[in-house]
């Protein structure tokens, strides 16, 4: 078995006294795409924040490329090659689209992604490169946020709530671009509310429920019904 790119081992995460994750574990191989599904408050975003270093688990280990990163601050995990597209996009509103992308490349990691390649992937952004980020439509903002994350040439890309608040047609367009992104050899974790979409685009699914993994497995071994059952906890 090849060495895992990311290994989350038995982590507990808290917001103050409130425990959000309970002994959660997850493994991701290089080049793999995993989808995390679960209801609101199941701990999906908390898991991503813990991986990227915006939160630090109180217990357990996170290994990236074999090195412990559970206590590493976010700017450092970014430099090591983990990029997060946060929930709600969160582009920098006082920066233009292009400045947002340039800032994504701040960590100076080299690789296939440049500003030209991002514009090639998302032509709509090229046309609007000099407008302030909030002037973009929701879908374009999501593209810009993904482009900004790619600019750091990550080895692991995390996308939180890919389709939240977007029209179905825009969601399809974004998903259509994911294979081109993964083809560059990076690993991907997406958080998705839509089980059908998750089954279609991922190799492996983790279903979270109240801070624990209710069910997980390769997408071809899990049925939609079993995931639904775990999702709703019935």
């Amino acid at each position, binding site marked *: 078995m090849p060495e895992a790119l990311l290994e989350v081992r038995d982590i507990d995460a808290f917001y103050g006294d409130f425990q959000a994750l309970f002994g959660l574990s997850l493994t991701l191989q290089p080049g793999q795409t995993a989808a995390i599904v679960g209801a609101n408050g199941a701990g999906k975003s908390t898991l991503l924040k813990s991986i990227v270093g915006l939160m630090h688990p109180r217990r357990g280990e996170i290994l990236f490329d074999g090195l412990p990163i559970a206590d590493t601050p976010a700017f450092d995990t970014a430099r090591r090659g983990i990029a997060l597209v946060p929930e709600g996009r969160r582009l920098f509103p*006082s*920066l233009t689209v292009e400045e947002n992308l340039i*800032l994504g490349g701040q960590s100076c990691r080299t690789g296939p992604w440049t500003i030209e390649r991002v514009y090639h992937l998302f032509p709509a952004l090229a046309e609007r490169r000099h407008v302030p980020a909030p002037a973009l439509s929701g879908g374009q903002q999501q593209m810009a946020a993904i482009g900004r994350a790619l600019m750091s040439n990550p080895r692991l890309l995390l996308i939180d709530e890919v389709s939240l608040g977007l029209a179905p047609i825009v969601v399809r367009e974004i998903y259509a671009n994911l294979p081109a992104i993964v083809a560059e050899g990076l690993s991907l974790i997406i958080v998705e509310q839509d089980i059908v979409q998750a089954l279609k685009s991922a190799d492996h699914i983790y279903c979270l429920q109240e801070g624990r993994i209710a069910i997980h497995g390769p997408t071809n071994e899990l049925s939609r019904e079993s995931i639904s059952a775990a999702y709703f906890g019935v």
Partner: protein
Amino acid sequence: MTEWINVITQGVLIGGLYAMFAAGLSLIFGVMRLVNIAHGDLIVFAAYLSLLATQTFGVDPLTSLLLVVPAMALIGYALQRGLLNWTLGEDLLPPLLVTFGLSIIIQNGLLEFFTADSRKLQAGSIEILTLQITEGVWIGYLPMIQFVMSVVVIAGLQILFYRTGLGRAFRATSDDQSVAQLMGLDTRHVFAMAMALSLAVIAVAGVFLAVRANFDPAIGPARLIFGFEAVIIGGLGSMWGTLAGGIILGVSQAVGAHLDPGWQLLAGHIVFLAILAVRPQGLFPKVSG
């Protein structure tokens, strides 16, 4: 008539100095939402550093800027990394309290070391050189240099903010700290760079303040007030607005002082309050993008 032209000109020139007080304050608040109560005392501290430099190395005050500006920038970086970064968080109160304490420490430290005697930096013959604009209107070289310097500082900050990578990092961090971190920006370093820049601006302001008039360890808080007023008159987040705010404050004080010497500070405060009442967002607030 020429009398009033003189008054307003002098007000504009001193306004440049107030704009420099304000620019550093506005920069820090903009980037990290920190209200630096010790700002005025740091201005006075820079003046004393310049005094030390002139006495130790025999250089004139303007040349001492070459030493004082980098020294203050270094102090700013260290102060932010070593102390102020630890006070930042959801709550605005801890940085307020800590910088308030810092203000008291600086004042008393200066008092202990330099005594309460009034000092002034001597710039030599340049202090009395003047330029005649028209019949009856004269402008001193020194106030003019100081005003040009303020415009250069403000323009420099504007360019830095909107044309450089550091400025981009400042704006991004100001927008969203945690996402800035996701981009690989160490916000502790970004904050420290902002404080270094703020204190570098303070250094210029402090030296010109000290060449212009007497100073002693206790005058810091009043400079802080002038800085605050200029920021608020101009509108937060706008560098050119800050310059305008400084000039409005300077002219108000000059006009007040001309009407009655006792009205100088009062006139400035009244104009500030009037603007705050009519336009609480300031005259030139940053257009939200």
